[in-house]
């Protein structure tokens, strides 16, 4: 219990630091959000200098950008405490929370299955390669290494080119066909899945590679452990031994899984950008281009919270999985 409390305090400090950074970093981007908006509006209707100045002042006041920086910050903190993430500049007057809520499901639906599948397949293939050894292992390892070292966005571009441009099997952008509105029907679901395939593949393949590389070396280490020899000397079958190895080599991989799930809300930014997928990554990308401070803050805050929460959960649950760490925490012999 003491352990949990001290950990919680520690994570709270990290959270505070992150809030401060989240607030000030976007404001260091050169440019002014109001400039962008006013310029865009001016393009539409050719307003004159006086009216334009007026508009500029109105927006500055509306967004609170005319106040001293410290006051702005305190205002932000006050709103945050009430659970209000503010109003987007770029999509004024949409609420930041609503914008995020609209994009988050797309990101989660894209990434959660990709992470889980990539993790399970990757670990399984890693153990298999280690156990088989010989040339199977050599070629498999080469494959894993190649996959894991391709930056995921490069793989995304390659897939996009191969299966959407050169061989037009899949659509090249979006989460569903343009012109349709999301609704529940078989047609729409098939349409979504069709758009889903390429971004999903680009993520899964890279993940499989990365997990398999890690798992393979863990498993090779475990294979030479004395307990493996001992079980073998007592006639335990190889299948059962591989299962023991799998369980033990899995422990460090669990951390990787939790971290991946924690950071997934940030979106595979570049994947979403490459495929113009309507998720959090695309949203953040637009927000940064428009200097949309509240939206950037909102998204980075969400990512921070998710990563911290994932870490916290790992810290608390790791002991449940590994008895050695559990006893170190409790202090038993």
């Amino acid at each position, binding site marked *: 219990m003491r352990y949990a409390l001290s950990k919680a305090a520690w994570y709270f400090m990290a959270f505070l630091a992150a809030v401060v950074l989240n607030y000030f970093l976007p404001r260091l981007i050169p440019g002014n959000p109001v400039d962008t908006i006013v310029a865009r509006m001016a393009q539409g209707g050719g307003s004159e200098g006086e009216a334009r100045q007026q508009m500029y002042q109105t927006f500055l006041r509306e967004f609170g950008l005319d106040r001293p920086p410290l006051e702005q910050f305190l205002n932000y903190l006050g709103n945050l405490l009430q659970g209000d993430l503010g109003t987007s500049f770029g999509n004024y007057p949409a609420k930041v929370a609503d914008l995020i809520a609209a994009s988050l499901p797309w990101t989660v639906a894209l990434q959660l299955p990709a992470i889980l599948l990539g993790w399970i397949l990757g670990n399984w293939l890693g153990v298999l390669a280690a156990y088989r050894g010989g040339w199977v292992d050599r070629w498999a390892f080469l494959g894993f290494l190649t996959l894991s070292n391709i930056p995921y966005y490069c793989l995304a571009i390659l897939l996009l080119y191969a299966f959407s441009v050169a061989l037009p099997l899949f659509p090249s952008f979006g989460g569903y066909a343009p012109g349709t509105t999301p609704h529940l029907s078989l047609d729409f679901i098939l349409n979504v899945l069709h758009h889903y395939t390429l971004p999903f593949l680009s993520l899964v393949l890279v993940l499989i590679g990365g997990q398999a590389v890690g798992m393979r070396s863990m498993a090779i280490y475990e294979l030479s*452990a*004395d307990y493996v020899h*001992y079980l*073998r*000397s007592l*006639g*335990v079958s190889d299948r*059962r031994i591989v299962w023991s190895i799998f369980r*033990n080599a899995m422990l460090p991989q669990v951390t990787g899984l939790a971290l991946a799930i924690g950071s997934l809300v940030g979106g595979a930014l570049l994947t979403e950008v490459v495929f113009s997928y309507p998720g959090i990554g695309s949203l953040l990308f637009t927000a940064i281009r428009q200097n949309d401070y509240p939206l950037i803050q909102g998204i980075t805050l969400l990512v921070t919270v998710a990563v911290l929460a994932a870490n916290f959960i790992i810290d608390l649950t790791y002991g449940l999985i590994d008895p050695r760490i559990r*006893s170190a925490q409790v202090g038993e012999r």
Partner: protein
Amino acid sequence: METLLSVKNLCAAYVQGGQRVRVVDGVSLELRRGEVLGIAGESGCGKSTLAQVLALLARPPLWVEQGEFWLDGTIYHLAQEHRLSRELRGCKVAMLPQGALNALNPTARIREIALEVIRAHQPKTTPQEAYARTQERLERLGLPVRVLEAYPHQLSGGMRQRVVTVISTLLNPKVLIADEPTSALDVSSQKAVVKLLRELLEQRVIEGVIFIAHDLPLLRNVADRIAIMYAGKVVELGPSREMVEASRHPYTKALVEAVLVPEPYIRQRRVEGIEGTPPDLRAPPPGCRFAPRCRYAWARCRELEPPPFGDKERFAACWLLEGMSA
């Protein structure tokens, strides 16, 4: 006494990168029912490799080149072409390894390990049955039953080694091959393990033990007979007491003298170490393999390999003994 296990002309070599190093070279041994046979020697003389082969665990790069393995009425051919079934291991011969902490899966409870071992041979066993059997065994041997729920790291070193001994013998193997089971333990834990082995023999759980050690005084207390290995060969064999008090082979004598025993008569003497190191087995010396380090060696020793002098019960392979025995 009746023979339980006998091996004849056993040869095993490590093969790697085209090089062949014969580490066990023509070893013949006999283990009798109810007996503890000790095998001693310096490190690097082939003891542990012999243990691997006898426990049917040889796998590349270790190759068994030849050897007949007679166990309780059945002959097995050990040379690698003959695949021995997995079922023999643990059931007929079992290994008791050194370093019990690493021998136990660190994330499994003792009862889970016991279940795994029993199920390897009797796949239909339920966890309850396995638990009951292990519990009964522990009680019969006077060990606490609570260890079943413990993880390996929660047990003391001595207890761990005894638990490993119990797990190794769960399936009542005929022969237990103990490879330096006591070398990492303090004296009282050593005693406990030895006592446990004796008890297992008395209760007929196991029928014979091959006890490998580098510690001659310990072996003297544990074993009924001792075989001394040097550079892959058995150089002397005999009843334990005689081996220590009236050894014939210069190597055995040197081993006995090299031991530090805080007894008055020894304290007054200089402890003689053995000069040099065992020969490089990639190119063993012709003649007697101990000759280069032997202070009695003469021309013949360096040319001709000495045959065993004596009888099956008590022999030593040294030219000095030629003509002495009749």
